[in-house]
């Protein structure tokens, strides 16, 4: 499994939202609730799938609802992947 830093995870999520939803990256804040961008269940499931392809943590889309901003989500994912690696 590839190690990813929190910033890398953040950038991955921003890139996904921009690509998936067509929102210019400049419009995306890491502290804004992802629901604001229209990340609904279909796209949230896809995001979790994309992230888990790299992180391999057996994630479900519930994590997006528990950690609903890019900052909190990437922080949690980094923590989880550290714990998994150790």
């Amino acid at each position, binding site marked *: 499994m590839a190690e990813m830093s929190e910033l890398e995870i953040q950038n991955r999520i921003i890139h996904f939202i921009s690509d998936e*939803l*067509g*929102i*210019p990256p400049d*419009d995306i*804040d890491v502290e*804004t*609730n992802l*629901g*604001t*961008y*229209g*990340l*609904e*269940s*279909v*796209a949230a*499931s*896809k995001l*979790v*799938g*994309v992230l888990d*392809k790299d992180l391999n943590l057996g994630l*479900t*889309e519930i994590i997006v609802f528990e950690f609903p901003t890019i900052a909190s989500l990437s922080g949690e994912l980094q923590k989880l992947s550290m714990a998994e690696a150790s």
Partner: protein
Amino acid sequence: MFQKSQLTRPETLSILGELPVHGSLALRAWLHPDKRLYTFLNEQGEETDTLTYLETWQRARAVADALKERYEPGERIMLFFPQGLDFIVSFLGCFMAGMAAVPINLPSRRRIDRCVKIIRDSGAICAIAPQKVIENADGAFDGTAAEDLEWICAEDIGRSDGLPETEDCEWHSDGGRLAFLQYTSGSTSDPKGVMVTQGNLTVNLRLMRDTWQLTEETDMVFWQPHHHDMGLIMGQLLPIVLGNHSVLMGPNTVVRQPSIWLQAISRYRAAFAGGPNFIYDIAVERYSADKLEGVDLSCWKLAPNGADVVRATTLDRFAKLHAKHGFDIETFQPCYGLAEATLVVTAGPIRRLPSRATVDSNELKTNRQIRSPSHPRNALELVGCGEPAFPFEIAIVDPDTHARRGHDALGEIWLHCDSVAAGYWKNPEATEATFGAMIDGEPGKTYLRTGDMGFIHADDLQLYICGRLKDVIIWDGRNLHPEDIEYTIAESTPALSHQSAAVFGYHDAEQRQRIVAAVEVDRSFRRSTPQEFKDMKNLIRRCVSEEHGVPLSEIVFLPPNALRKTTSGKVQRGLMRQLFLSGDLELLGSEPVAA
């Protein structure tokens, strides 16, 4: 049954082609009571519920008995169910009781407004739902026009121990009887319930069976929700007529892990499975060689692709990637349909390469004619969505003059068939305008106006779809009305309450649907900082996604009078789209945006 000890195969097919769908269920529950009809899979792809033909009939019978105890035939009954097999028995129970079902999405905070409007528009007297949904909805309708709705708890209804008799087939019943109201059309503020009759359903189910040559051996896998016409009619009603086994799962399962869908097709040896175009894209994007190890799709003979634009690149990529699992591109069945015509309108022929046409986009736009591209730059590749399924008659008509147009000419798609619904519930004006159209010089025969533009190609007699006449945006198979989103934007903050907005969709370079809002703002915004514009964008995005469940891709702010309107004051969304895409809009508060 029918005064006979058995039925021959041609007799069975003839009868099933005429009976109302709950009558077909009674017949099949008599013919093969213990055969499995439905299996439901959970999010891990494991079986959690099953129903045989007889169990389905007996549970529906119990629902019908519970309804008949309380209400008169003709009443409308709301159905609120999560994905699973409890929905279909209630739905069929309404049919057996002679009442009209109204299947819609579960009420949630975001959808409560729409939900209340539909309850009121339909005049539903009662709702059937599982205990959990009733608890969650408790209080949500207080103070609304829907607070008098009576609730029946699904768990309180058992299973009848009776066996089907000939009269349960409802042979010679009235085909004009209202079966259900399909609320997929109309904006939030003005919901329109399509009146689908028992006769409509019988005709559409029969034409699917016959066009695709489906039999009791064509087992299937479906995942579309039951409040969507494809999930309901193709996934849950069609199996009853066919006598096959249908494996169902929730949309979330498949969207999160498309491999579960493909594994199910392989495991249950399904021959018939499909969905809107996006599901094939997701399957490609999320392809996992590990998860698909040992998956054998050679059983898969028909993959309908409908309810959204069908893209040639999607078909090619999916077929190429899954060829090693035995998938054949001839499996694809691009098709076209709409709720106003019950479901399927065009499909087939089967077992051949999907039809394609490369046309000149300029000729199409300016002269509404189909020509070979004059320059590669103008080449537009389209996928044929099938031939008219018998007994549909399709006319291509000039939407302004109502003159009939020939092959290879673009026009609005008009339909005539017994499968065309009876109209919009309690809305004679909209019914007359949409269902009562007549072709210039051909009086006496009415057609359904689909609002879709297309042409019949002389080369292959396929119907090709070229967009909407109106401004409706299609998002993952769902119709969105720009005026609803524009209203939400104006309501999002007092600062915008007197401003106008144009919302329109376009397809990006990878042909993905994008939704843009162009918001006109007055002088008071001139001095707004970039941060203030950004905050406003966030606010607009949040309101639109909460209200409509879709992302706004781009939001642009325009100076006063930059929004183009007709002389009667209507926003010209098509023109705004064109100006946006060509970069000819003067924008405030943000860098110019290139599409």
